C-alpha cells in the first residue's frame, strides 16, 4: 500500500471538494483497501466519510431513501426492505459474507470495481487499470467476463449483486456536488459500458459524492434474485438475475429484469421487459425473452457458456415468478 494522508470529512460538500482534488473516499473499505494493498488503487489522500450523516433509511415519496453509508447488512435487515423490496434484500444476502456486508456500504458497493483477473494483476496489461496498455482478458482466461456490451478495450464485468436488484427496481442514485447541488441518476444509467474508456466504471465525476439510493414505491409482485456461482456461497456471480414481476388475470402486468455477471454494468434491457408485459406466461415467451436479451451476446471462449446458462436460468426465474412449475 502506498503511503497516503488520512483525514475525515465533516460534511458532504467537504468530501466532494476532496474528490475534486483527487482524494479517494473510504467508507467500508472492503473493496478499496483490497485494491490499495495490491497498489491497483494508489490514492495520495484518503478521506474517511464514515462520520457523515448518511447512515439511515428514510421514507420518501412512497419509497425509501437509503443513505450511502447504510451497510449492506443493515439494508438487508431493514424490515421495510425485507417486506417491500425482497429482491434487494435477497441480492444483498447473495453477495459476499456477513463479515463483508457488515462493512460494505450502499454507496461503496455501487462503486465496486471489477474482479477481472487481469485488472487484479498489476503486472499484466489492462486498459481499465492503465489506459492504453491493452486488454489481457482478450486472448487470456475470460471465463468470468462479459457477453454483452463489451468492447475491444475491455470485457470486464461489474461484479456486484445489490446493484442488479437496484436496476430491476429502477432505483435512483442521489449524487451531491461540491456546491451542494444534488443530481439523480437512475441506477440503470449509473454504471457505464467500457467503450474506449474502460477506466471509468460509472458516471460519478470528480467533485461528486453518492449520498443515497432512492427506491421508488414498492412494485409488489414476485421478487426473485437468482445467482449462479462456482460454489454454494462466497463467490461472485457467473450469471445472476433480479426479477420483479407482477401478474394480473393470468397475464404479466409488470416485468422488470436485470442481470449480473453479463456486462460491465448491471444489465437491463427494456425490450425484454416490454416483450413480457401483457403476455400470458409460457415457455415460448420465456425463450423469446432470452432470445431478445441475448441477440447481441458474444462469448470470448471460456465464457461462451454464459449464453446458454443465462437462457436456462432466465427460464427458471420466469417460471417461478409467474407460477409456472419447474
Amino acid at each position, binding site marked *: *500500500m502506498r503511503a497516503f494522508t488520512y483525514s475525515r470529512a465533516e460534511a458532504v460538500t467537504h468530501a466532494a471538494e476532496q474528490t475534486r482534488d483527487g482524494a479517494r473516499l473510504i467508507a467500508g473499505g472492503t473493496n478499496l483497501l483490497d485494491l490499495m494493498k495490491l497498489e491497483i488503487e494508489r490514492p495520495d489522500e484518503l478521506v474517511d466519510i464514515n462520520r457523515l450523516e448518511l447512515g439511515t433509511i428514510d421514507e420518501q415519496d412512497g419509497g425509501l431513501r437509503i443513505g450511502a453509508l447504510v451497510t449492506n447488512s443493515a439494508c438487508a435487515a431493514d424490515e421495510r426492505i425485507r417486506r417491500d423490496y425482497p429482491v434487494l434484500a435477497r441480492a444483498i444476502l447473495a453477495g459476499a459474507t456477513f463479515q463483508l456486508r457488515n462493512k460494505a456500504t450502499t454507496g461503496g458497493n455501487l462503486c465496486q470495481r471489477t474482479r477481472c483477473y487481469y485488472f487484479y*494483476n498489476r*503486472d499484466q496489461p489492462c486498459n481499465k487499470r492503465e489506459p492504453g496498455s491493452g486488454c489481457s482478458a482478450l486472448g487470456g*482466461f475470460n471465463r468470468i467476463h462479459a457477453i454483452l456490451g463489451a468492447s475491444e478495450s475491455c470485457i470486464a464485468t461489474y461484479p456486484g449483486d445489490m446493484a442488479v436488484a437496484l436496476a430491476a427496481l429502477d432505483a435512483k442514485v442521489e449524487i451531491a456536488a461540491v456546491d451542494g447541488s444534488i443530481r439523480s441518476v437512475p441506477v440503470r444509467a449509473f454504471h457505464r459500458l467500457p467503450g474506449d474508456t474502460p477506466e471509468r466504471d460509472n458516471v460519478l465525476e470528480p467533485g461528486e459524492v453518492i449520498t443515497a439510493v432512492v427506491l421508488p414505491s414498492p412494485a409488489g409482485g414476485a421478487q426473485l434474485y437468482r445467482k449462479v456461482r462456482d460454489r454454494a*456461497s462466497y463467490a461472485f456471480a457467473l450469471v445472476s438475475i433480479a426479477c420483479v414481476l407482477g401478474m394480473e388475470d393470468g397475464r404479466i402486468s409488470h416485468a422488470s429484469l436485470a442481470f449480473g455477471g453479463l456486462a460491465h454494468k448491471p444489465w437491463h434491457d427494456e425490450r425484454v421487459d416490454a416483450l413480457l408485459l401483457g403476455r400470458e406466461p409460457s415457455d415460448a415467451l420465456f425463450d423469446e425473452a432470452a432470445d431478445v436479451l441475448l441477440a447481441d451476446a458474444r462469448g470470448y471462449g471460456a465464457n461462451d*457458456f454464459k449464453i446458454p446458462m443465462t437462457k*436456462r436460468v432466465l427460464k*427458471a426465474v420466469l417460471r417461478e415468478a409467474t407460477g409456472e412449475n*419447474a
Partner: protein
Amino acid sequence: MTRSLTMDEPDERNRLDAMAQGVIGKPLDRPEGPLKVSGSATYAAEYRYKIPGCVEGVLVTATIARGEVTLLDESSVRDLPGFIAVISDERMIARPAQGGAGESPVRKVREVQYYGQPIALVVAETFEQARHAAKHLKVEYREEPDALVDPADERATFEPFEDPTIQGDLEGSMRQAAHAVDVIYTTEGHNSAAMEPHASIAQWDGETLTLYSSLQMLRFNRKELADALGIEPEKVHLLSPYVGGGFGSKLGISPEGVAAAVAAIRLGRPVRVVMLRQQVFQCVMRRSETRQRLRLAADAEGRLIGFGHEAWVSNLPEEEFAEPVLQASEFLYPGENRVLDLQLARVHRVTAGSVRAPGEAVGMQALEAAMDELAEASGIDPVELRLRNIPERHPSEDIPYSSRKLEECLRSGAERFGWDKGPRRPCQRREGEWWIGSGMATATRVHNLNEAHARVTLRGDGTAEVASDMTDIGTGTYAVLGQIAAEMLGLDPAAVDVKLGDTAFPPGSGSGGSWGASSTGSAVFEACEGIREELARKLGCAEAGLTLKDGHAVSGNRKVPLADLLEGRDVEEIGHFKPGKIAEAFAAAMYGAFFTEVAVNAYSGEVRIRRFTGAFSLGRVLNEKTATSQCMGGMVWGIGSALTEDLVFDPRDGHIVNPDLAEYHLPVNLDVPHLDVLLVEERDPAGSPLQSKGVGELGICGAAGAIANAIYNACGVRPRSFPITPDKLLPGLPEV
C-alpha cells in the same frame, strides 16, 4: 539410552491391546485444543512480538516466465521511508524444497524459470513499508521469448518419468473384453492453500541461526536450510510448534524462510518474512494438472482382465518429482494385462510437488470415475463390481497384501448410506429444480513409514514427557503421541506432556505422506518399551509380568505408585524407529469406500452434495476423534477437487490467473453437508509396531470420483474433466 526398532517383518505382538490403561484409540480431545480455540497457540509469524528489533521482509517475484534479472534498481526504493535493503543473494532459493529432499532446492534467484519466482527480498522497518517497497522496486529482465508454459502446447514433449509397468497384452484384452472402457480424464492444478501463509522469522547470533517457521518436516528442513546457507545443520535451530496447515506445501524449506535467514545474517537483525497470500499460490507448490487415459477390460462377470492407466503431468526443469498418479493403480485392481505409464513434460510453471495425497488424490478420482463407466457398461452394480475386483496378490509384484479391509468398507459403507443395489439409470429422480443421484467410489492410499526418533521421559513424579521435532499440522499428533505414551506407561493422558516442533528434540519423522503418527508413534512406543523394562527391573519382575495402570506399577500382588518406584528420579529413553524391509514385503495400504448423494440443478448445472458417507480402514485407530476429523477433511478436499478447485494458468506467460482465495475456490461451509465417517476396526501387523497405518490423506483418495459418479447418476452428464463446474455440465443437461 536409545533403543532402535527396525521393522523387517510384521509385528504380531500387538502390544498396545495388551496394555491396561485403555486410552489408545479413545476419542479424546486434543490436548492443545484450549490453546488453539483461545488464540494462544503461537504460530511462526507471531513470535515477532516477542523479538525486539525484528524487521520485515517481503519477497519480490518475477513477472516473466523465463529469462534473467538484469537489474534490481535499489535507487528506486532507497528513499522510501523505512527502507533497509534489497537482498538478492546466491544463497536464496528460487523454489521450495521437495518433501524429504534434505538439501537445498534450486537457488539461482536471478535466473527466472517461472512467473512468480522469488528474485529478491526487500527489507524495511515495518510490513507496510516493506510491501510497498517490494512492489515499487524497479526490476529489469532479459526475457527469453516463447517460454514453454503450457503442457497442452504442441511443443511440449512428454517423457517417461519412471519405468512403466507393462504386462501381457492390454490391447488384446481390450479386444477380447466382454466390457471395456477407454476414456480420458483430466484434472487441473491444485494449491494446498493452508490457512496460515508460509512465514518465517530468522535470528542470527553470529553462530547459530534460529528460525521460527511453518514447516512439516524439521529434520529435513534443517538440512535444506543449512545447505542453502552453507552452514552446518547443527547451527540451525528450527521451531514449528504450531503449523497452520500444511498439506504438503510446507514439507520442504520454502523461499521465505531462506530469504529471512539470509537477510538476518546480512543485516545482523532479526527478520520476518511472511508470504502474501498471492505468493503462496505463485511460488510454493502446485499439484500438477493431469491428463489420464484409463483402459479397463473386463470379462462377462466384470472381472478385470486388462488394466491400463497412463498419465501425463508436468513440472519445472530440474525437479525430481512427478505427480505419482498411478500409485494406487499399481495394486488396487487386478488385470493380468497391464500398462501403467507416467509421463512428464518440463514446463515453466511454478514447482509441482506434493499436495495432500500426491498421486491418489487425482489418480483415484479418475480411476473410480472410469470404474463407474465400466459398471454402467457391464450392467453390474458399482459396489458389486469393486467386490469382484479385489486381487489375491499384488498384480505386478509377487507379494501379498497386508491387512486389507476393502470389502468390509464397501459393505459397511453401503449399508450405512443405504445404497440402492437396483438398476442404475441417470435422470430418474427429480426434486423441484434438482436432479438427484447417488454415486460411490473406492478409497485407497499407499501406506508409508519413515525413520523417526522420539524421547520419552518418565519423570520422577510419575508424569511423563514426550519430545520430538515431529510436527502437528492439525493432524492430531499432540493427542496421539500422548495417548501412545499414556497407554504404554499406564498414565492418564493428561499426565503426559507432548513437546513437538523443535529441532532441539530428537528428530521425528515429520508430517507428510500420512506416515507421521505411525512412524513417530512407533518411536514413542519403542522408548516406552525401554522405560517399561527399566520399571520392571526396579520392581524386580519380568517386563512381561508388568502392568502399568493409573500411575501404578503392578506385578503379581504388588502395586506400587510410579512416583514411589522412581524415587524421584527420571527415566529417559529415546526410541528410534526404522521402517526396514517391511515396505518391500507387503503391499500395505489404507482402504475405504465413499458413498454420496448429490443434487444437480436442472437449469444451471450447479451441484450440491446432500449426503456423504465414508467408511475407512486405517489399521489401528489411535484417536477416534482426530482420525474421524482427518477423514472428514479429506472428504472436503474431495468436494473441492470434484467441484470447485482449479488453478488456472495464463496460456501466454504461465502466470497463475487466480492466485487468491476469492477466485481459487476452496469449499466453504455451505458446500459441505454433514459428513458421515465410519471407521472400520482393523489391526495391521505390517502397518507398524502399533498395527496402525496412515490417516490424513485417505479421505480424499477417490472422493471426487464418487461425486462425479453421483452427478452422472443424477443428470446423465460425465464431463470427464475436473472440477465439474456448472459450465461443463450445461451442454449435456436435458433441455428445460
